[in-house]
């Protein structure tokens, strides 16, 4: 660990924090339907879209209507994307003449992008046409992020409204999220990335002759525009197979830094939107503080583990930390930070191979995802995921002040607890259930590249990443098979919709309740006590479930590595 490394991490946190208030204020205006700086430009366009679609922007929806619209919208997106992937050979903008995508891979990929997971069982530059990348994937990068934001906005309204049945309009929220938040920021970011040397072209791959006289194909394409939304929308699907470790997808240290900042930007600022909309910004800061504590612990552990890799590495005579699988351009600190950021925020882009991290360094990304991506988390998804934990925390501990637990003046009762538990249940079900399946079936056992606990970690990581809608890959797992494509897709669907729909049900139930005025008998939810409680509940309820699986994967690997043992390479 070096001072330089810590300064990078501190600088990163400072920049993210500085963005929270301005971005939060802006997004609050957007979702409250108020005028913003961009309204004169985008307003007519927005109204035009509603007119074409036949949407009455003032028509609000109940939670069921909202959820129905959300599912319908995502289903339509899925069908469209699936069709493009299957038909890409015959569609325009295919200079490399890519063949149609296989059915199971198309199913997996469509699900992956619609659920904001962006798990990639394929290599982008060798599988997809430009049309598939731009119209298919980039389009879903925007709208899947926007639909996550919409659900979070609806849940916030559940808290901020009282005695009403409606939560706003899914169509309006999604449109405004895309039009006012994601698009303008992406235009700016894409131009910035181009300035850093990222390609943005529709020209075909470049044929180059190497110094040795060999032929080399250098893939290019509309990279910058996809990278902008890939990070901002916490999508993470790379244009290239190597993702953010590829020099064209992450050309400079500055580009790397900005990419990391944009992963957290909207998610962190959304806590501020929450605070503003419920009328007490401190509530938002408290939630961000809980996320921050978990994040900093993760960063510290990973950085320490990677920088001071002892055990097996020192037995091999290596010093100076673990550089395997890392770009020398970024070094250990920026790679460790990136790994924690991308898994904390449900992004899934990688600038280093997590598979090559030390056992503990790889454990942190895994835990980040198993906690349900609530450490800042995916855009919108992080907030509603965390609010589900808040409900459980408030319910358990709130009773200890001698009142029916309430949060922001809303009583937490059977219905909310039921839905929150449903949301919490679905993750261990998908993550552990499918891992258990894959570790006994031959089709599953064929996947991992390593034997022993590390191979186990590869499988566990894949399902964890899918169900948490992260999309990052540990690497090492051969996932483009019928078995993995299908089961991972199902895990993604469970992890997305079995949280989103309960979150909306909670929102509907809360909105219908009266808001109880706070008194000195009310449990205060903006102080350090609440932050500590929330962290504890996330770790114990979200984390303990996975202790056995972690013990058999990274933990045993760690103890073995400390003792200088390795496991034989095999299946």
């Amino acid at each position, binding site marked *: 660990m070096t001072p330089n490394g810590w300064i990078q991490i501190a600088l990163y946190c400072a920049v993210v924090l500085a963005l929270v208030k301005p971005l939060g204020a802006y997004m609050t205006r957007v979702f409250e339907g108020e005028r913003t700086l961009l309204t004169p430009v985008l307003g007519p366009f927005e109204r035009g879209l509603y007119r074409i679609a036949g949407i009455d922007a003032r028509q609000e929806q109940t939670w069921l209507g909202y959820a129905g619209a959300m599912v319908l919208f995502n289903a339509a997106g899925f069908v469209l994307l699936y069709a493009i992937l299957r038909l890409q050979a015959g569609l325009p903008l295919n200079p490399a003449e890519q063949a149609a995508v296989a059915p199971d891979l198309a199913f997996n990929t469509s699900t992956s992008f619609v659920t904001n997971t962006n798990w990639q069982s394929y290599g982008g530059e060798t599988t997809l046409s430009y049309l598939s990348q731009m119209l298919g994937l980039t389009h879903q990068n925007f709208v899947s992020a926007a639909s996550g934001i919409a659900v979070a906005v609806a849940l916030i309204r559940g808290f901020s409204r009282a005695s009403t049945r409606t939560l706003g309009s899914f169509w309006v929220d999604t449109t405004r999220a895309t039009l006012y938040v994601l698009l303008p920021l992406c235009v700016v970011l894409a131009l910035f990335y181009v300035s850093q040397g990222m390609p943005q072209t529709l020209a075909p791959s470049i044929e180059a002759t190497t110094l040795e006289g060999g032929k080399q194909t250098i893939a290019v394409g509309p990279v910058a525009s996809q990278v902008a939304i890939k990070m901002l929308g916490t999508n993470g699907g790379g244009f290239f197979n190597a993702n953010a470790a590829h020099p064209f997808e992450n050309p400079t240290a500055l580009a790397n830094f900005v990419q990391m900042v944009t992963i957290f930007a909207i998610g962190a600022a959304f806590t501020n939107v929450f605070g503003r909309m419920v009328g007490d910004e401190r509530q938002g800061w408290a939630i961000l503080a809980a996320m921050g504590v978990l994040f900093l612990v993760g960063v510290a552990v990973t950085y320490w583990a990677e920088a001071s890799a002892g055990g097996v590495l020192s037995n091999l005579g290596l010093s100076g930390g673990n550089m395997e699988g890392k770009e020398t351009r970024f070094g250990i600190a920026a790679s460790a930070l990136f790994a924690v950021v991308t898994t904390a925020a449900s992004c899934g882009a990688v600038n280093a191979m997590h598979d090559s991290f030390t056992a503990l360094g790889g454990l942190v990304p895994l835990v980040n995802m198993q906690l349900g991506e609530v450490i800042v988390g995916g855009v919108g998804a992080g907030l509603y995921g965390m609010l589900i934990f808040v409900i459980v925390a408030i*319910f*358990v*501990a*709130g*009773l*200890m*002040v*001698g*009142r*029916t*637990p309430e949060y922001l*003046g809303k009583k*937490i*009762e*059977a219905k909310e*607890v039921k839905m929150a*538990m*449903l949301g*919490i*249940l679905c993750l*261990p*079900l998908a993550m*552990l*259930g499918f*891992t*258990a399946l894959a*570790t*006994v079936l031959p089709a599953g*056992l064929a996947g991992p590249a390593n034997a*022993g606990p590390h191979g*186990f970690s590869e499988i566990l990581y894949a399902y964890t990443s899918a169900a948490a809608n992260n999309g990052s890959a540990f690497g090492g797992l051969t996932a483009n098979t019928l078995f993995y494509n299908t089961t991972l897709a199902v895990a993604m669907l469970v992890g997305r919709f079995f949280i989103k729909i309960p979150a909306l049900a909670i929102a509907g139930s809360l909105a219908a*309740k*009266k*808001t*109880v005025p706070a*008194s*000195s*008998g*009310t*449990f*205060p939810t903006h*102080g350090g*006590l609440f932050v500590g409680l929330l962290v*504890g509940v996330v770790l*114990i*309820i979200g984390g*303990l*479930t*996975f*202790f*056995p*699986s972690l*013990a*058999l994967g990274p*933990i*045993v690997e760690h*103890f*073995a590595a400390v*003792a200088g*043992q390795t496991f034989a390479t095999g299946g």
Partner: protein
Amino acid sequence: MSRQNQSLFSAALVGPAFLGAFRKLDPRAMIRNPVMFVVEVVAVLTTILFARDALAGGTDLLFSGQIILWLWFTLLFANFAEALAEGRGKAQAESLRRTRTEMTAKRLTGPGRDYETVPGTSLKVGDLVLVEAGDLIPSDGEVVEGVASVNEAAITGESAPVIRESGGDRSAVTGGTQVLSDAIKVRITAAAGSTFVDRMIALVEGAARQKTPNEIALNILLAGLTLVFVFAVASIPSFASYAGGAIPVIVLVALFVTLIPTTIGALLSAIGIAGMDRLVRFNVLAMSGRAVEAAGDVDTLLLDKTGTITLGNRQATEFRPVRGVSEQELADAAQLASLADETPEGRSIVVLAKERYGIRARDMAGLDATFVPFTAQSRMSGVDLDGASIRKGAVEAVIAAVSAQPMAQRGSSAALAYHPAAETEVVDQVRAIAEETAKAGGTPLAVARDGRLLGVVHLKDIVKGGIRERFAELRRMGIRTVMITGDNPVTAAAIAAEAGVDDFLAQATPEDKLALIRREQAEGKLVAMCGDGTNDAPALAQADVGVAMNTGTVAAREAGNMVDLDSDPTKLIEIVGIGKQLLMTRGALTTFSIANDVAKYFAILPAMFLTLYPQLQALNVMGLASPQSAILSAIIFNALIIVALIPLALRGVTYRAVGAAALLRRNLLVYGLGGVLVPFVGIKAIDMAVSALHLA
């Protein structure tokens, strides 16, 4: 019903509870408690497996036998807690049932006093019965004719007789109580089996117990957590097979049972029953558990001024004469006027005159005095003696009476000393003093002698001692208190300030009360109040917690969701405390139960996976002796902690009115952090015992 505190583990209660623990193993009863039902299913299945293994001559039978034994203990301890909680209620129900012996009733057959004797059970609602001295009142009803003294010790434990009379707010009688004197005609208002005593028995026995909303929500959470751990444990065999090994079923069962929230699951219903029981011990009957819970949530407390905030009676605290009259003279006149006045106010004037001016009580008969009683028309009382007439009463009434008297009839000295201009000045003075008195929260009483105004007696509402501190405590709990009074706003404001209530409703009518409750509720607040009169019934019904006084009318008792057998309105404050305690105990034990899991993982996981990966021995942070003793210790701890926490579940976590933040900090520290640490110590200690005894 006695109020004596039975010790928690008295032999009389433990014996039946012990049997009850076995009886409650019936799965039909267990299924009400999802967590413990799961434990029972697991216990049955492992017992069957064990029997099979034993017949087949399996290995490690001692170890698995012990685990299974402790599984059953876990269940029995949970049932024991519930049976013990119920047992305390049952004992009370028994004493109630004794009062409900076979009763006969004198059913009236005509408008007179003709009756036929019928069994009490055959009475129908609307029947008229005659109850004479010595008779037991056969069923709940309302006095329609007559007045009688009634011994209600059977339900209140208070042996002093109470008066029950037709009309008014003291017309309700309860079946099973005894008429001591006179005779009354009672209209029956409850059919056999649904009387007050019947309901009391059902309540204290827990037969009528339904899960409260909060309990339902908690059960959902616990069931959800149980499911989470089903996934966590059920996935282990495949993980183990990947690692090239297998985990014995009994070990998986041990891990599962220790992880699911058995501690709170086992004690949840005991906590609820004990909460109701605490109220009963307090001589308050809650008609539903929901009401007890709501009591903990109360935001606004409506309290009647008289009897709750102030002593029932006003007392004279000061004599304020007009100019030219000495205090002594005023005191003397006021004392004379009050000698025959038996009202508490009148007596307090006599007491004050004696204490402050040494004016001794005089014998009315010896003075040849005639007492002029208070009437609603005159609004004055007084005395005529030796040709002198002294009056005291409402200020305006006395002024009016003085002005109406012709000059000639006034006392000679008065006639000489005063002329009309001076007279208006005296009236103005009296009015000014009266105004000041009212502003200070008192009631002014004007005194005149022989048509001459002497001054004003300051009658003061005496705020109960310590009540101010109680309200400060309530404020710290976050509860707003509102004083309800018939006084005018000026007086009400002064008393409100003195008592330290947050708000007041002056000149309150029953409609005002109802409107106030609705207004508070519209703001999302929960309101508690108590009342006794029929005109309180709508407000009692509207309030979230309505405590009816046992002395009140049938209508009031029906409308409220709690009945205070002692008819003490101040109890509302304690009721709130009991409600809070109930919720706190649940939260504390849930937190403790969940926090325990950390240590249990560290005990069982390394033991379980040791055969797969010896490196995981590093996770055995407690240094437990062997894998088997580690697993056994964890499951023993899991069972024993239930027993250890039974007293806490039954007594409840202590509630301190220190504000939510401080309360939460303390409870999180004790039950959250404590819940993480205690099992590390406990499991280690049990492990040392287990290995010392060579049990594993």
